């Protein structure tokens, strides 16, 4: 603020001084105005002489040019007497000085008072980044990290910090780019691949693209496959129309999960969600019309599951069908009917050890054990 006013005062003072200094300067008696013209014509005549000496024009041309210029020169000299300058008057000079001394600051300070914002300091971006961080503003932090990353783009940790924030802010493209950098700089792990896939999935607005699928597949390779990766691969299978494969993947996950795994709830939700979506072929026409609401769709699914149960009870079927029936019942929330299905299957395949084991595993996985096992 003080620096600004000091600058303002200096500039104003200098401007006023320019006027006063010029007015105070002593001048020679002003030259005859026509003298400038006469000087130009004299120069022209000299020029003609030079051109003639260099052989650029011949004597006749030089003569006629000289005559023409001389005519103009005489005309200019004739005007001379009439154009004498008036002597500088002290009164006028004083008036000018007062106008400069008062008018100049009046206009400039008055104008600035109306237009300016002297209270607003400069805020260059670099200086702002150094200020204490304002935690409440994510954007501010992001720009700080971005600035750091712009300077040092090989900072893998930085990319790892900012990537989930990008995703949270909805900048999925940037998040994917950041995760790519993380993998490039810090190496690939199942979790990082799964995160990259998730960002790509978000960027594609909920579609598992080829890039995303590759990332997810990498995330489930090795000894410690990523749960998140598997979950998304299940979704990918479902998006491909391969519902059985999707459900199988989820089942496997559930079967492998420790009892107190925090993601069990999410898995169950996912299973439920997938079961709700009618399997292919999708109903069309009037049928689709009848399945508008989730309740209607649910009823339709139940109808199909019941039909399967009836068929298996009457005609029998293979182990796969029985497993599917039990799973579907469990997913639909009919725990008792699911247990019943398992019991029936156990009875049917009583001699088959492998079938029994798979039934037990399913019961375990669906949380149906406790009776008969």
């Amino acid at each position: 603020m003080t620096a600004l006013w000091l600058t303002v005062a200096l500039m104003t003072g200098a401007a006023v001084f320019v006027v006063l200094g010029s007015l105070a300067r002593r001048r020679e008696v002003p030259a005859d105005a026509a003298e400038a013209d006469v000087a130009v014509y004299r120069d022209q005549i000299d020029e003609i002489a030079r051109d003639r000496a260099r052989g650029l024009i011949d004597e006749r041309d030089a003569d006629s040019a000289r005559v023409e210029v001389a005519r103009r020169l005489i005309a200019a000299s004739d005007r001379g007497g009439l154009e004498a300058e008036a002597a500088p008057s002290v009164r006028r000079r004083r008036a000018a000085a007062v106008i400069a001394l008062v008018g100049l600051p009046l206009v400039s300070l008055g104008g600035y008072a109306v237009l300016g914002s002297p209270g607003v300091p400069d805020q260059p971006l670099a200086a702002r980044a150094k200020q204490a961080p304002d935690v409440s503003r994510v954007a501010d932090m992001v720009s700080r990290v971005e600035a750091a990353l712009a300077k040092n783009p090989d900072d893998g940790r930085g990319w790892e910090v900012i990537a989930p924030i990008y995703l949270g802010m909805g900048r999925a493209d940037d998040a994917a780019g950041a995760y790519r950098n993380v993998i490039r700089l810090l190496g690939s792990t199942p979790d990082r691949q799964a995160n990259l896939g998730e960002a790509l999935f978000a960027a594609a607005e909920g579609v598992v693209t080829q890039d995303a699928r590759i990332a997810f597949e990498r995330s489930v390779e090795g000894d410690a496959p990523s749960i998140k990766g598997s979950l998304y691969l299940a979704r990918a299978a479902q998006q491909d129309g391969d519902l059985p494969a999707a459900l199988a993947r989820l089942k496997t996950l559930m079967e492998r999960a420790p009892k107190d795994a925090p993601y069990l709830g999410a898995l169950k939700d996912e299973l439920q969600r997938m079961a709700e979506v009618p399997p292919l072929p999708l109903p069309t026409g009037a049928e689709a019309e009848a399945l508008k609401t989730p309740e209607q769709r649910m009823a339709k699914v139940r109808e199909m599951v019941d039909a399967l149960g009836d068929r298996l009870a009457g005609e029998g079927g293979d182990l796969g069908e029985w497993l599917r029936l039990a799973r579907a019942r469990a997913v639909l929330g009919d725990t008792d009917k699911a247990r019943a299905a398992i019991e029936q299957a156990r009875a049917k395949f009583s001699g088959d050890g492998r079938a029994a084991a798979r039934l037990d595993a399913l019961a375990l996985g669906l949380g149906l054990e406790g009776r008969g096992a």
Partner: protein
Amino acid sequence: MIAEAGHYALVLALAVALLQAALPLWGARARDAALMGLGSPLAVAQFVLVAISFAALTHAYVTSDFSVLNVVENSHSAKPLIYKISGVWGNHEGSLLLWVLILVLFGALVALFGRNLPLRLKADVLAVQAMISVAFLLFVLVTSNPFRRVWPAPLEGQDLNPLLQDPGLAIHPPLLYIGYVGFSMAFSFAVAALLEGRVDAAWARWVRPWTLTAWLFLTLGIAMGSYWAYYELGWGGFWFWDPVENASLMPWLSGTALLHSAVVMEKREALKVWTILLALLTFALSLLGTFLVRSGVLTSVHAFAVDPARGVAILLILSVFVGGSLTLYAFRAPVLKQGGLFAPVSREGALVMNNIFLTAACAAVFIGTLYPLALEAFTGEKISVGPPFFNMTFGPIMLPVLMVMPFAPLLAWKRGDALRAAQGLTFAFGVAILGTALVAGFLRGGPTLAPLGVGVALFAMVGAFAEIQERTKLFRAPLAESLRRARGLPSSAWGAALAHAGVGVTLLGIVAATAWSSESIVALKPGETAKLAGMELTFDGVSQRKGPNYRSTIAALTVREDGKVIATLEPGRRLYLARNMDLSESSIATFGFSQLYASMAEERDDGQTGLRLHYKPLVVLIWLGSVIMSLGGLLSLADRRLRVGAPRKAARPAPALQPAE
């Protein structure tokens, strides 16, 4: 503090300009040397203040100070430094500040180098310059202030329009503005002459160099703008008769006329009144050009009405300066003494013809540009005046100018001999006929008149040097004698020849690139090949790149001729992230004076990529010719000789024709 200091400097510059507009003028009327002497120091002070202000704004851009609204609206922290700087004038407010900076720079130059100007003329000129800068400073401060602040400051700017993020923008507007503003000098001198009621001998000596400077920068600026549009817009066109382009062409046409009539005035003290009128009109057209582009009138008359403060201010400035100066002209012009007489066939006569046709061409452009705007403003009806109108009017008007151009330098002042001049052009005429015949005989396709266009262009190019040939007695005297004479020739003679040849070169480029260009719009899969003008362009596929503030998709093309790789092209599309704007980036390969031009249209779902391919023969000549014109102007400017029009005898003694011993 720096931004506010810049703001204050600008307000203070306004106060200084007010003093500079009033005190020297008062002094000139009262014949008071002390007051007249104030003009120079005030002009310098004003320049220093505006320069401080401009530097402060540039500082805000470079440091990404987003507390300045103008920076928020036109910059982004991720933008490369060069575009942070050029972004200063890449917007309405900043460009007007640049305009004012150049204006006060010219004022300061008069103050510093105009020591030999008569005191009163200098005082009047500086006062008129100051009036212009008062108007513009007020306009900037009140309606288009680049120093408006925002509190609290946003964290990021909205980025500069990606179209403007190009090296072309860094150079184009300053060149154009030096041109526009340079004509303000001619204007100020003209108004000063009208105020005094007489034209000093020094008047012509001063006006011509200023006009020449303005003209050569304007020429470069227009050429630069044309080339920029050519490679940036992705259509392969070099001139669109777009109102923005026309706005710069009009002052160029009348400025060219002014340049030539100023020669007559300087050498023969004739055409005084006309020259003064041209000086007034040229600057009026420069003002119009600045405002047409800056006010938004061109996008729509409605956009103009949305921001009435700016619109009204613009109309006010235009009417005060144009109306005021023309009124002054009406009252004072009869007082000016008319100069020497001349015969119709003479150098003066040819220059008058040049003036008549150039102003007529300018009028045609003026009507074509402004009539649709006026019609929309009054009746609401939207019409579009396109290239056909300009091709029908502008072309035929310019043709006589081009035909007479080689003759004029061969005619003597006061009274000339058309036959002798025609004899001097025999060789040029022969070349033109031969060129036309060859082109018509060997090139298929293209409009019927195109070979004639080539002929006119060749005539202009070769004919431009006829005067040099005559004055150096080349082919008629020993080579040594010719060389000695060539060295003795004033650089302005070389300048005129070069500038006139440049016009021919540009014309040749325009004719060839318009008549014999080939174009192909194709959709290719990687590995596929398109053919154009005897070349094979193989599409190698698409890749992604990341720029500082954009992502780009690039299509790679390999160009082969007879199986040999002669070039690679990489047209692409850039997505600018801050504005989410998608922009085509064309790629150009130059072979001699011809260019192969590729731009990428879109990637399609079926794996094909849309490409627009052009082959433009001799297209580079268009801009090369403009550069040659400007070089001619520069040479002419370097000629510090005083000019005296010496009438040459029509009948020359024979010795020159005798064989060398």
